[in-house]
């Protein structure tokens, strides 16, 4: 058992280079259980690459990722999903030809037990056989998961439920983001990584999304959030990390970070930073 004060997720010196470009440069990060940390920074700062490194879609050149005290650096995304890490994607990667229901059921894939017996070697063949025979236990499990999916979709009000059998390609951009989040929730994650959940949403949709994330946090879910909308970041985050050119340039409570001259410089450029410094000093 991990000690009570061990962070759920901790990154140490995490580094990823693409040719001459260092996309993530010696990142350190600690995220306590039940906490919500936001990562902000200009486009190209390395935020999404950092998510890819944590979720196993990309491998770091240096540094380590620990989840519940265990070293998970370089594990495959499949294993990390099995370990309870779920994420959404910046560009909205729903399964276009699958219905909303099936998209979210894929999120529950790691929770399948009856149809995926943990038997070595012949496990996959048993899975094929059980999928074809469908004994009562398999049917019951599928039914349970479908009910779960409906409960998750109900959290989005009337946005998704009426469209439950429609293929995802027919959904609006905002609804695709909602399907992604529903899919992530279906995994029953212990750590949720949200990559710009409100991108492309109007103010009222953003407010809805913000309320949902606040609800998830209140339920005790641990969340790492990438977001550009500072208003939302300030309200939700325990701590804010600012990245620029792959490096962490500031970290702390929202208000503190917001007035940090280095942050203002990263967002607005060098010309304005002098003025900003004077302003914050005043």
């Amino acid at each position: 058992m991990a000690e009570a004060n061990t962070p759920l997720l901790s990154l140490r010196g995490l580094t990823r280079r693409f040719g001459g470009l260092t996309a993530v440069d010696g990142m350190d990060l600690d995220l306590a259980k039940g906490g919500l940390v936001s990562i902000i920074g200009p486009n190209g700062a390395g935020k999404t690459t950092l998510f890819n490194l944590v979720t196993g879609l990309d491998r770091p050149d240096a540094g380590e990722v620990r989840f519940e005290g265990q070293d998970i650096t370089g594990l495959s995304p499949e294993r990390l999903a099995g370990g309870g890490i779920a994420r959404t994607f910046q560009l909205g990667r729903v399964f276009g030809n699958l219905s909303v229901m099936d998209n979210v059921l894929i999120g529950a894939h790691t929770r399948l037990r009856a149809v995926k017996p943990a038997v070595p070697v012949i496990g996959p063949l048993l899975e094929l056989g059980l999928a074809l025979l469908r004994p009562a236990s398999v049917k019951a499990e599928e039914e349970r998961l479908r009910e779960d999916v409906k409960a998750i979709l109900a959290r989005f009000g009337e946005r998704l439920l009426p469209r439950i059998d429609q293929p995802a390609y027919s959904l609006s951009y905002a609804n695709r983001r909602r399907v992604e989040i529903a899919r992530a929730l279906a995994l029953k994650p212990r750590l949720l990584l949200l990559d710009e959940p409100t991108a492309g949403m109007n103010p009222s949709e953003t407010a809805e999304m913000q309320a949902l994330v606040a609800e998830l946090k209140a339920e005790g879910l641990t969340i790492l959030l990438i977001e550009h909308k500072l208003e939302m970041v300030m309200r939700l985050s325990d701590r804010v990390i600012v990245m620029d050119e792959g490096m962490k340039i500031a970290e702390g409570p929202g208000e503190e970070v917001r007035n940090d001259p280095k942050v203002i410089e990263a967002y607005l450029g060098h010309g304005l930073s002098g003025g900003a410094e004077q302003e914050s000093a005043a």
Partner: protein
Amino acid sequence: MSSWLDYTINGLIVGNVYALVAVGLALIFGVSRLINFAQGSIYLVGAYIGWVAVVQLHTPLPLTIIFVAVVAALVGLIIERFGLRPLQNSVRIAPLLATIGISFVLDQLVMLTFSPNPRALPSQLPDVRFQVGGGTIGPLDLLIAGVGLSSALLLFVFLRYTKLGWAVRAASQDRDAAMQMGVDVNRVNQTVFGIAAALGGVSGLLVGMYYNQIDTAMSLQATLKGVVAEVVGGAGNVPGAVIGSLLLGLVESYGVAVFGTSYRNLFAFLLLVVVLVLRPNGLFASARQAPPEPLTGTFIAPSRPVRIPRWALAAAVAAFAILPLLPVSFYVLQTLINAWLLGMLALSLTLVAGTIGQVSLGHAALLAIGAYTSALLSLTLYVPVGLAIIAGGLMSAALGTILISPSFRLRGHYVSIATLAIGEIVSLVILNWESVTRGPIGISGIPPLSLFGFDLISPTSVYWFSFAVMVVLALLQARLLGSHLGRSFRAIRDDDIAARAYGLSLNRYKSLAFIFGGFAAGVSGGIAAHLYSYINHETFNTQQSILALTVVILGGLGNVVGAIVGAVALVGLPEIFRVAAEYRILIYGIVLLLLVRFRPQGLLGTI
């Protein structure tokens, strides 16, 4: 020692010929991210145009070369303008399928014009050999080397020092950026197709002269060799394609030296599979690249499948089941038996290519494995035919999945190349493994179909047997699609990265799809073996793989009912209209082209 020098020279000469094909492929891939499967057909056209020039027009050699280059370039321009440009905004799989269709149409047109019999293509050069060290070299060798080197040089100068050449390079580095900077991408595409076709045509001419003979089977072989050389050098990498070609020529030449001529192609395809597994971006690519762009919903056409009510399906099954009781001719039954066998293959392919998105071009290999297993078990071990067919299905499932597993980490067009190569490897192993497969002689005297000791010889009983097997396989597959595996397969097809992020192991689920699909294909091959009573390494060829793919696209990718409807349509309609056999492949090619252009989701829609 001297013979080794000969083999080296021979390898380099053949490599030079491959380079002419591969450079064209690399140019096209660079600009449009497309593997042009019609490249070999242009090579074929070049060879026959050369034959017309040499034998009928008696042109001198330099004029022959120019004539061939110009005509081939024209063919390339036509392909680009009418076959591919209309597909610019289609799904990613569309242009690949279109080039396959074009290649079938071109090959068939050449065959109908010149007949499939081989023709002699005299070399127009004096037949003398010069001593070089311990080996010998002839004027034709020098010509091939000269044409290879000078076209490489011309291409280099064109790409480096002309404005259009810059545009080609810009478009291949970043197509969108080039367009925004005012590069006319259509003109670039035209240029590239023209050059590629001219090089391909000349290469066909030279190969014809080198072997003194041309025939219509050259086309597919040329495409395969060019693709191997190109992928080995790194897709889209022009100098890489030249080096890959020379390497391929040498590997083949030394392989032939050690093991014999029938192993030539085996070495080529093994080289391809090894490169694809170890360095999928080619020998000269940097080892690690940025994670690939999302492919969501772009690989296959999104569509709403046509819903057919259950009672209508049940009625159709009942109608076909009682058909032999009605006064129908044996000819109709025979035709439908062929449709049911093709239907089983299409069920298998629609699962693999449609449901999980692995567009296999070597699916006939699964037929061959099932057929040989079932035939050999019943002939040598006297296993009852019914059991032998099931064993054939199981063997096809197991062996097919193991053989295809190297392609599981590949995506998109690379999967098609790898499966094509694996299919060829299976056929070549059958040819060369004489102690088991009886090699080129084939297996004859295969016992007829039988069930529980009763021989099924009458067309009626064979009809019922094959129809029943197909219906059972279709029902099983429909049940599979309704399970969690169905949605997992489709999720992997739509976005493999998101699927992995949700715990779906690509190896596990692609294996399961191939195991299930392999069984259906193996059973189809097994039944065919007992029906034909004779099989050899050419019974189940690439043409059948492509026919099955056309069936699957006609019916709608992943669509179980569609696969069967497609099989009946493509086997039955030509029979009903009494289309002569030599026109059928032409029709399949045209059907494929029309579908890709006008109804990519097929008749019944993608599932």
